[in-house]
């Protein structure tokens, strides 16, 4: 990895040397790996693949961002060597219970981006957020928004809500957050696709939502951190569990990861996590690896690639606006790899 240069990457490298004892020389990896799944971490995985090419020229990895659901279906149908997913596996998803292991890789904040001329600092509490996205609040100068933003003059402008039109892990995590943080207000439940009110607007992919927000004065929507930054959108500070308004940032996301409880299978929920500097809407993402690979060579390739992600690769995360895993979780993830047969 070429230096991210901040304190995160320092510690990251430390763990890396420790855990990569078995597979530190990536140049010995040779062969092909096919993967498909979530589009949320796609930018990060592609960056990793690009970097790894230098270290392991004989290894070809493809990651096809077809969506978590399709990735899981592919996994169950043996179409890929590992899958990317933003959500946990349910019975009907395809992979048989016990045939897979979760490996957390990175996390990222989901921003609430907006386009409101004259307002460059916006604070929103989960309840207000839920009301906005449910179109209970239709205007920017609504008292509820004003209450969150003392001292800010809000224009009398109608709100245009933008959401994902395609099934999306981002939608899933955003709505999960609302379920968790505004349980009494939020009625639309959570999922990759929810029943958005008719007057809201959908767009394809995060970039589509970003574009939609930019094109409509008075627009608001949820966009992953990396796309929001690249699009030059302004995003709101969200009130976290501790009552603090924290803007989306990688530090806030890492703080959220620290505040989340990790289950035995290494799944965890950083949404609405506790902690004063926590950014409340932080989404995890996982790689599904098989418990058993019939092809031993394939097993080594998968292990090698995922190890790279969890070690050197972690330092790439901030470069593409993803948050690296905290040390503790990283260690657990690396240990998870040893369960592969």
């Amino acid at each position, binding site marked *: 990895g070429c230096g991210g240069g901040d304190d995160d990457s320092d510690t990251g490298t430390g763990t890396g040397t420790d855990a990569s004892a078995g597979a530190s020389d990536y140049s010995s990896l040779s062969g092909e790996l096919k993967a498909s799944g979530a*589009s949320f971490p796609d930018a990060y995985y592609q960056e990793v693949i690009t970097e790894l090419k230098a270290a392991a020229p004989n290894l070809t990895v493809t990651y096809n961002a*077809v*969506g*978590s*659901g*399709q990735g*899981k*279906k592919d996994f169950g149908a043996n179409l890929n060597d590992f899958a990317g997913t933003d959500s946990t596996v*349910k019975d*009907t*998803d*395809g992979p048989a219970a016990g045939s897979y292991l979760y490996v957390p890789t990175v996390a990222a904040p989901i921003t609430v981006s907006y386009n409101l001329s004259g307002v460059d600092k916006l604070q929103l509490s989960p309840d207000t957020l839920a009301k906005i996205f449910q179109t209970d609040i239709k205007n920017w100068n609504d008292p509820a928004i004003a209450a969150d933003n003392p001292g800010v003059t809000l224009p009398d402008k109608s709100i*245009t809500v933008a959401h994902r*039109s*395609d*099934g*999306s*892990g981002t939608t*899933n995590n955003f*709505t999960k957050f609302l379920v968790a943080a505004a349980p009494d207000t939020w009625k*639309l*439940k*959570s*999922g*990759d*696709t*929810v*029943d*958005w009110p*008719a*007057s*809201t*607007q*959908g*767009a*394809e992919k995060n970039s*589509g939502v970003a*574009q*939609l927000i930019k*094109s*409509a*004065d*008075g*627009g608001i929507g949820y966009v992953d951190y990396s796309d929001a930054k690249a699009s030059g959108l302004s995003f709101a500070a969200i009130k976290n569990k501790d009552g603090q308004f924290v803007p989306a940032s990688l530090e806030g996301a890492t703080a959220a990861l620290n505040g989340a409880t990790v289950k035995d299978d290494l799944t965890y929920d950083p949404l609405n996590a506790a902690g004063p500097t926590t950014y409340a809407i932080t989404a995890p993402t996982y790689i599904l690896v098989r418990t058993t690979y019939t092809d031993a060579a394939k097993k080594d390739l998968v292990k090698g690639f995922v190890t790279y992600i969890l070690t050197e690769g972690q330092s790439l995360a901030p470069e593409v606006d993803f948050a690296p895993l905290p040390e503790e979780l990283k260690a657990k993830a690396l240990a998870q790899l040893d369960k592969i047969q």
Partner: protein
Amino acid sequence: MTTQTQTGPDPKTALSSRGGGPRADRSFQVLTLAAGLLVLAVLALILITTTREAWPAFDEMGLRFITENRWDPPSEIYGGLAFIYGTAIVSLIALIFAVPVSLGIALFLTELAPRRLRAPAVTVIDLLAAVPSVVFGLWGVLVVAPKLVPIYNGIHDLLGGIPVIGRVFGEPVGSGRNFMTAGLILAIMITPIITSIAREVFDTVPRGDKDAALALGATRWEMITGAVFPHSFGGLVGAVILGLGRAMGETIAIALIIGSSTQITANVFASGNAMPAVIVSQIGESTGTFTAALIGLGVVLFVMTVIINTVAQAIVRRAEIRMRGAAS
């Protein structure tokens, strides 16, 4: 047979089939038939596999799958009425714009254009067909949709107040991604298809029919309505149906432009969604019954196409009986 006549040059009298001649003919016919049957086989296979995969959703939703207007995957409620409506309205808009334009171009090319102009015009139309739909989608969402918003606003201001019409031209959505934009882009996409078939159809109108009308003192336009249209009716319906098929099945471009709201509204300036677009954009992150429901939308679309085609063919047949008369 040949007993009494050793007459003419001898080999000429052997008339029975020799070698594998007739068998070659037979084989060729069977080959072509097989190719034809392949269409039926593929279609049947598509219907069977998709219906099978969609079954969990049909099973759970029953008729509500097509009568309910609520698409709520978290609650496991899949009512696709809004998407059926969206598909219908967008296709309708596309046809309203594409059919007159296509017929106009086809008539221009067959009845008006100087011979020199025809070839280049046909090439240009073909070029239009060569632009991939994803490019139309991109162009539609990035370039066209925002530019149309002021026009929509203008139309709304103009007609919005009129009782019934006003509801059709309601408040436009700010992004310009709506039924109308989707319909317009679709119209551009199906215009080359309808044009190229309509041109062939008009070309087959007998010269004599056109001459007869003109010889009665008809103007060119009167000749077209009197002689060309009655003759072309069946073929034109076919052309329109082919264009409609394309419009109803278009996915990527619509997914980008229609605005993706689940709603049934008379307002053509409002966002909506259409079946193929819903499938393509939601299938990736779907699992279980949700996937089944999405595939179910494909089955519904398929059934709709069958119905439309059947109705169109019946219309054509009736028109033909009326025009050709019972005698022939």
